[in-house]
C-alpha cells in the first residue's frame, strides 16, 4: 500500500465553515438543473408558520367548505375558458387543467374536469421558482408576473404540455399560486406533434422550458414570445394558447381576490392547507381499511416505438397499517436512446390518477390524495429515468405503470366493506390515435393529433360490462372530439370513424368496453403525414381481473398504391368500412396491403392512401362461462363480436338466424367446458416444472427482472444485465441498421455481396 493511500482522519469543517461552503456553492452554481430535492418529493410541504397561524384563526368547517367551493368553481371556470378558447386540439377536447397551489407550491384544489396529472406535477416547477427565482435579483417573483414551463425533468408529463403559472399576492404578500396546463401538441421536436418517438436524446425533443418568466405586469413579453414561436412549427398556436392560459389564470385570480376581499387572506390560506391536510389524513384512514397484503403484477411494453422488444413494468404493492408502498423495482432499465422513459414524478402523477379517478373520486382533487403513498424505483430505470435520457414518449411507461397500479389496487379493494367505487378491471391504456403534421389545405404548418386518444375502452367492473371508448385513463371527463370540425382545419378525412372493431374483445363474465376503428387518408396536401405512438401490437398492455381476459393486440394497417378518393368517386362499391374486409378482401387491385407495430415514425402520406388502426378494449372481469347468454347475444347484435367467436368462447348455443338462446344446450356446453378445463389443467407444482425457466427466453429481447429477483435487470438478452443499483448505458441500434445487417447476412450466405470490400 502506498503512503498516499494511507487513511487519514479528515478534519471536519466547523458550522461556520459549512455555512460558508454552502453559500459559496449556492453563489457559484453553474446550472440550475432539475433539483432532486424537489423532484423526488411528492408529499406536502411542511405546514408553514403563516399557515399554522391562519388555521388557528379560521377553522370553521362551514367557512372552509364555502371557500373551497368558491375556489373550485373558479378553477372550473378557468378550465371552461381554456377548453372553449384554446387553439390546441388537446385544449378543445379536455386535455387541460387548472389549479390553485399553496404559497409553498402544493396543489390544493384542481378543476373538476381535465387531466389531473398535469396539475399534480406543476407543484414541482412552482417549488423550483420559489427556491431559485424569488430571491434572485435578476429574476424575482412580483405581482403581475407569469412563468411558463414544459420540461418534464422539472416536473411534467412530457414537454408537449405547457403550463402558465401566476403568483397571487395580497397586500404585497404571496398568498398562493394559480396555474393552467394544456396538452399543446407542437413543440419543435424532431417530429411534428410534440411527442417524437424518434428522439434519441433530450436534444431531439424540441422546446425544453425550465420555469422562466414570460409575463410581466400581466403582459406576455413579446421578445420571449417571438423566440418561442420561432422554435415551433405552429407559431400562432403558441401565442394563442399562452394568452388563453394567462387569461384563465387571471379569471381564477379574480375569484381568489373576491374571496380575499370577503373573507380575508387567513381564511383562504387556512382553506387551502386544511383541505390538503384533511385529504391526506383521510387517505391514510382509507388505506388502513384495506387488508394488509402484498400484491404482485407486471405489465409488458412490447416495443420502444422503434422496435419490438419485451420491456417489463414490475409492480409490487404492499399495504401495512396505514402505509401503502408501490415498489417498481425490477422494471426495465432506462433506454439511453429511446424516448419511452419517464421521470419518477410522472409515474407518481399517473398513480395519483388511479386513486382520484377510479378509487376515491369523492376526494377533492389535489396533490394530497397521493401525498402519503410511497413509491420505490431503481435508479435510471424506465420509470425513474435520468436527466440525460429522452422521455418524450413517457406516456408509454406512465400508462403501463398506471395499469400495474390499477390492477394491483383492485385485488386489495375487493374485500373492503367500505367502497367508494366498484372494483374495476384495467382500462385500456394506449393512445391509439393518429398524430399528424405538415402543411394544411390552408397553407398552415401544423403538428398535432386526433382526440381519439381519449376514446379508450373501459375495464369491466364487478357487476357490469366496461363502457366502449369511454374516456382516457388520464381524464374522466374528456371528449373524443368532432372529426368533422377537425377536417375544416386539416387536409385529411377519417373515412371510417367511431365504428366498433368487431372481435377485438376482452372477454369475461363482464367484458371490457371495446374500441373503434379509425381509417384516415390525406386529401388536400402533398406535404402531410402521420405517426402512431402505441405499444401492444404483439403483447397486450393489460392484465385481466379475477379470471377475465385482457384485450387482444392492435396493429397498424396500411393500404398504399391506391387513391381511395378516386375509388369512392368512380367505384364506390369497392370501398369497405372495416379493417377486416379491406385487409382480407383486398378490394383495390393495384394496392399493397401491409401490417406494422404501432410505433410508426412520422411518415409522409400520399393522397388517398389508407392508414387504419383501432382503439383498444378495457380488460374483462370474471370467468367468461358465467356471462349472461343475453349479454353475449347483445354483443353479436351490436357488432362487437362475430357469432362464431361468441359460440366458441362463451359456449353459448343459439339459433344462427334468430339468435334465440338455447339455455339447456348452453348450460350443458358450459358444464362440459368446466369438465374439459379440469381434464386439461395441470396441477400447479407439476406445471411449473415444465414452464418455469431460469432466464428470459433467448428469442426475445427482454428488459427488466426475471421472476422475483429484482436485483438483476436484464438488458436485451440472458447474458447482458446490470445490477439494479448500478446504472449502465442501454443503447439500442437503429432499426434500419438492424434490418440492413440481416439482409446483408442473407446476401453473404448466398454469395451475393458482389465482392464488396469491407
Amino acid at each position, binding site marked *: 500500500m502506498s503512503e498516499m493511500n494511507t487513511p487519514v482522519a479528515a478534519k471536519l469543517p466547523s458550522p461556520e465553515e459549512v455555512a460558508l461552503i454552502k453559500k459559496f456553492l449556492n453563489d457559484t452554481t453553474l446550472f440550475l438543473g432539475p433539483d432532486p430535492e424537489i423532484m423526488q418529493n411528492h408529499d406536502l410541504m411542511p405546514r408553514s408558520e403563516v399557515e399554522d397561524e391562519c388555521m388557528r384563526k379560521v377553522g370553521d368547517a362551514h367557512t372552509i367548505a364555502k371557500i373551497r367551493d368558491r375556489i373550485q368553481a373558479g378553477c372550473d371556470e378557468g378550465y371552461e375558458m381554456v377548453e372553449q378558447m384554446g387553439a390546441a386540439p388537446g385544449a378543445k377536447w379536455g386535455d387541460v387543467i387548472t389549479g390553485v397551489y399553496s404559497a409553498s407550491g402544493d396543489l390544493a384544489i384542481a378543476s373538476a374536469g381535465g387531466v389531473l396529472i398535469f396539475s399534480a406535477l406543476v407543484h414541482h416547477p412552482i417549488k423550483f421558482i420559489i427556491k431559485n427565482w424569488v430571491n434572485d435579483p435578476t429574476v424575482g417573483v412580483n405581482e403581475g408576473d407569469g412563468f411558463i414551463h414544459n420540461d418534464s425533468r422539472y416536473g411534467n408529463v412530457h414537454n408537449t404540455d405547457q403550463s402558465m403559472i401566476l403568483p397571487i399576492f395580497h397586500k404585497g404578500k404571496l398568498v398562493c399560486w394559480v396555474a393552467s396546463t394544456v396538452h399543446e401538441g407542437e413543440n419543435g421536436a424532431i417530429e411534428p406533434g410534440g411527442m417524437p418517438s424518434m428522439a434519441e436524446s433530450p436534444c431531439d425533443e424540441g422546446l425544453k422550458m425550465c420555469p422562466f418568466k414570460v409575463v410581466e405586469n400581466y403582459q406576455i413579453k413579446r421578445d420571449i414570445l417571438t423566440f418561442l414561436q420561432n422554435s415551433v412549427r405552429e407559431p400562432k398556436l403558441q401565442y394563442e394558447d399562452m394568452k388563453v392560459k394567462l387569461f384563465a389564470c387571471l379569471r381564477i385570480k379574480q375569484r381568489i381576490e373576491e374571496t380575499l376581499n370577503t373573507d380575508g387572506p387567513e381564511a383562504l390560506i387556512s382553506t387551502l392547507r386544511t383541505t390538503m391536510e384533511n385529504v391526506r389524513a383521510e387517505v391514510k384512514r382509507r388505506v388502513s381499511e384495506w387488508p394488509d*397484503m402484498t400484491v404482485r403484477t407486471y405489465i409488458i411494453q412490447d416495443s420502444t416505438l422503434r422496435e419490438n422488444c419485451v420491456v417489463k413494468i414490475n409492480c409490487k404493492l404492499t399495504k401495512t397499517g396505514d402505509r401503502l408502498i408501490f415498489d417498481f423495482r425490477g422494471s426495465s432499465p432506462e433506454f439511453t436512446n429511446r424516448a419511452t422513459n419517464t421521470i419518477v414524478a410522472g409515474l407518481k402523477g399517473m398513480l395519483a390518477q388511479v386513486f382520484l379517478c377510479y378509487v376515491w373520486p369523492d376526494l377533492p382533487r389535489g396533490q394530497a390524495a397521493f401525498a402519503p403513498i410511497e413509491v420505490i424505483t431503481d435508479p435510471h430505470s424506465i420509470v425513474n429515468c435520468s436527466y440525460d435520457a429522452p422521455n418524450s414518449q413517457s406516456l408509454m411507461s406512465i400508462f403501463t405503470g398506471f395499469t400495474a397500479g390499477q390492477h394491483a389496487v383492485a385485488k386489495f379493494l375487493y374485500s373492503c366493506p367500505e*367502497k367508494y367505487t366498484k372494483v374495476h378491471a384495467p382500462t385500456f391504456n394506449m393512445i391509439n390515435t393518429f398524430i399528424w403534421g405538415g402543411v394544411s389545405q390552408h397553407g398552415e404548418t401544423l403538428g398535432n393529433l386526433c382526440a381519439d386518444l381519449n376514446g379508450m375502452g373501459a375495464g369491466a367492473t364487478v357487476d357490469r360490462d366496461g363502457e366502449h371508448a369511454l374516456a382516457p385513463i388520464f381524464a374522466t371527463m374528456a371528449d373524443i372530439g368532432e372529426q368533422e370540425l377537425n377536417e375544416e382545419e386539416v387536409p385529411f378525412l377519417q373515412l371510417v370513424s367511431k365504428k366498433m372493431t*368487431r*372481435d377485438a374483445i376482452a372477454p369475461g363474465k363482464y367484458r371490457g368496453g371495446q374500441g373503434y376503428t379509425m381509417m384516415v387518408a390525406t386529401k388536400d396536401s402533398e406535404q402531410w403525414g402521420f405517426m402512431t405512438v402505441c405499444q401492444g*401490437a404483439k403483447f397486450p398492455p393489460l392484465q385481466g381481473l379475477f379470471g377475465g381476459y385482457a384485450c387482444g393486440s392492435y396493429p397498424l394497417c396500411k393500404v398504399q398504391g391506391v387513391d381511395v378518393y378516386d375509388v369512392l368517386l368512380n367505384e364506390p362499391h369497392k370501398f369497405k368500412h372495416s*379493417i377486416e374486409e379491406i385487409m382480407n378482401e383486398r378490394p383495390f387491385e393495384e394496392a399493397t396491403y401491409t401490417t406494422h407495430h404501432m410505433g410508426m415514425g412520422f411518415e409522409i402520406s400520399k393522397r388517398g392512401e389508407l392508414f387504419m388502426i383501432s382503439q383498444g378494449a378495457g380488460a374483462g372481469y370474471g*370467468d367468461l362461462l358465467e356471462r349472461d347468454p343475453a349479454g353475449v347475444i347483445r354483443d353479436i347484435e351490436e357488432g362487437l363480436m362475430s357469432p362464431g367467436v361468441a359460440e366458441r368462447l362463451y359456449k353459448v348455443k343459439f339459433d344462427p338466424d334468430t339468435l334465440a338462446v338455447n339455455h339447456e344446450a348452453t348450460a350443458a356446453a358450459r358444464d362440459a367446458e368446466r369438465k374439459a378445463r379440469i381434464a386439461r*389443467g395441470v396441477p400447479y407444482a407439476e406445471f*411449473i416444472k415444465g414452464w418455469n425457466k431460469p432466464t428470459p427466453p433467448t428469442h426475445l429481447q427482454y428488459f427488466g427482472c426475471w421472476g422475483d429477483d429484482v436485483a438483476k435487470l436484464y438488458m436485451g438478452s440472458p447474458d447482458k444485465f446490470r445490477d439494479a443499483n448500478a446504472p449502465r448505458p442501454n443503447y439500442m441500434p437503429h432499426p434500419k441498421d438492424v434490418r440492413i445487417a440481416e439482409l446483408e447476412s442473407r446476401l453473404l450466405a448466398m454469395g451475393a455481396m458482389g465482392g464488396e470490400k469491407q
Partner: protein
Amino acid sequence: MKVLMTEYLRIDLDAEQWECRVCDHVIGSAGKSYKEGMLVHNRDPREIHPPIIDPEKYRFTFSPDPEWVRILEYYCPHCGTQVETEYAVPGHPPLHDMEPDLPALRAQWARREEVKEAVVGPAVTADKGHGH
C-alpha cells in the same frame, strides 16, 4: 370468520385456508399462493383473441404473438371455475399475486362483522339537476 378476497376466492381465517367461493373446495394454505392449489392451462392467446385479419397474409393480425405471450389460466380443480388469468412471458415464473398478512387480517376482521355477499360499491346515478 371468512373473508371474501376475490370474485372466486375467500380465506377461512380460522383454518387459514384459501377456499373456492363457487364450490367451497378447500384450495390450500392461505400462507401460500392460492395458485399452488389450482390447475393451470397454458393457453395460446390466439384462441381467446382471434385474428381479425388473415394470419396467412399478415405479420400482425390483432392476435397476440404466441411466441411472446401466453395466457396462464388458473382453474379450481373441483368445479373448473376460471379463478384468474395471467398474461405471461413464456417461461416467466407465475406471480405470487396475493400474499395476505394473516395475523393482521385476523385482527382487522375481529373488529368487523363477517361479510357473506361481496360489497359491490356505489353505482353512478344521474343527478336530478339544478332546480328551484
